[in-house]
């Protein structure tokens, strides 16, 4: 047994002996089939590693880009209570990004590399964050619908085959519950308020409903990565399955809010035991993915600017740490020679 330090664990996959790939791959397949978790030092197929990096990076990027639309309203929150809640939520999103970046780093991809790719537009984030937050009610609609869709997606990820990703998701899902409930409570307050407030809540739901359904990704027959991800048990349910689950959960929740969902085709299907719903505008989804959504440019520009403007803070922290280490070393040497 060779002693390796924990931060070298990610490279362990490269240690595999020549010609033993078949046996290693069989062991990997068996572990996945038996519903065991793959851990960083285990051998894994290159494509599995690459697929995880792609998905976890996109997930992490979504968390930190997702801070922007909501942060837009912090300074204009209608009360101190709402402001404190919104700050806590945006802070959580930053935290979720950090959990996911560190989980991605266990696969041997550095954080700077991931950020560089985001800034260069070479890795994606969820298309939902390319829509603007036009009114205060949008903060509620995001909490209820966007975080609700995220939870529907993320709960099965807690059983994902890659250990560090699954563990990060457990942490995140626990925290998401507050996000969704504060949004729902906010919308309920507006919905029961003045006619103008009610209308504002309804307008926000009208704008966020369809983009939220798109968060589950393209239909199963058009999803590029789905089948392989399901075989590897990175994904546990198909996009359409999760989308249906989300619709069925939302319908009674909307009724309790006293708000309607903007879909004339939405109705209970007795035979299926599920709701039928209208066709999603996948052209719009593709356009937003291509970079032509209402806020794509703004989100990336802001992200790059935040990164550049934060450079002096990172430099200062390193300079301080170096100075501190030098002082300590000098003090210790002084003691030794005294």
């Amino acid at each position, binding site marked *: *047994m*060779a*002693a390796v*330090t*924990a931060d070298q664990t990610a490279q362990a996959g490269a240690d595999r002996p020549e010609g033993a790939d078949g046996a290693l791959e069989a062991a990997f397949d068996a*572990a996945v089939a038996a519903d*065991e*978790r*793959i*851990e960083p*030092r285990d051998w894994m197929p290159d494509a599995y590693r690459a697929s995880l990096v792609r998905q976890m990076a996109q997930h992490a990027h979504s968390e930190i880009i997702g801070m922007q639309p909501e942060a837009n309203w912090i300074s204009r929150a209608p009360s101190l*209570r709402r402001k*404190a*809640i919104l700050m*806590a939520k945006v802070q*959580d999103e930053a935290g979720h990004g950090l959990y996911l970046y560190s989980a991605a780093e266990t696969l041997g991809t550095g954080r700077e590399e991931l950020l560089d790719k985001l800034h260069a537009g070479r890795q994606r984030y969820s298309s939902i964050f390319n829509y603007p937050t036009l009114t205060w009610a949008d903060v509620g609609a995001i909490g209820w619908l966007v975080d609700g869709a995220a939870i529907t997606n993320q709960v099965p990820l807690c059983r994902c085959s890659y*250990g560090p990703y*699954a*563990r990060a998701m457990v942490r995140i899902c626990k925290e998401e*519950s*507050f996000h*969704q*409930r*504060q949004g*729902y*409570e906010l919308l*309920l307050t507006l919905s029961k308020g003045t006619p103008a407030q009610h209308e504002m809540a309804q307008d926000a739901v009208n704008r966020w409903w369809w983009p939220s359904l798109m968060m589950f990704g393209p239909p199963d027959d058009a999803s590029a990565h789905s089948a392989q991800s399901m075989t590897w048990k990175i994904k546990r349910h198909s996009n359409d399955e999760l989308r249906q689950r989300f619709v069925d*959960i939302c319908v*009674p*929740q909307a009724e*309790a809010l006293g708000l309607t969902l903007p879909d004339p085709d939405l109705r209970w299907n007795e035979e299926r035991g599920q709701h039928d719903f209208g066709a999603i505008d996948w052209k719009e989804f593709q356009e937003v993915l291509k970079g032509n959504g209402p806020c794509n440019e703004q989100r990336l520009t802001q992200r790059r600017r935040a990164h550049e403007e934060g450079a002096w803070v990172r430099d200062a922290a390193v300079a301080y740490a170096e100075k501190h280490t030098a002082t300590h070393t000098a003090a210790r040497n002084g003691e030794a020679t005294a």
Partner: protein
Amino acid sequence: MSSSTEWPLWEVFVRSRRGLSHTHAGSLHAPDAEMALRNARDLYTRRSEGVSIWVVPSAQVTASSPDEKDSFFEPAGDKPYRHPTFYEIPEGVKHL
């Protein structure tokens, strides 16, 4: 570390099975990392308690100070709104 000839102390973390994170099991003395790993295996996983072990030199662990416990963790103390139970949801509404 003093200049004594005693072997350094290592903290031992054991992953009990795949899918769970390594958790602290205890510590032991060993002359180097490799011996620490072997000793940890013999000391902490004699009954197959683990599938993976980490050892970390105890001197490398930076810990928060017990004296500062209150002020250090105080910022989270007055933020009940970080918990889902802070929010009132009408009775009967499910999946929230």
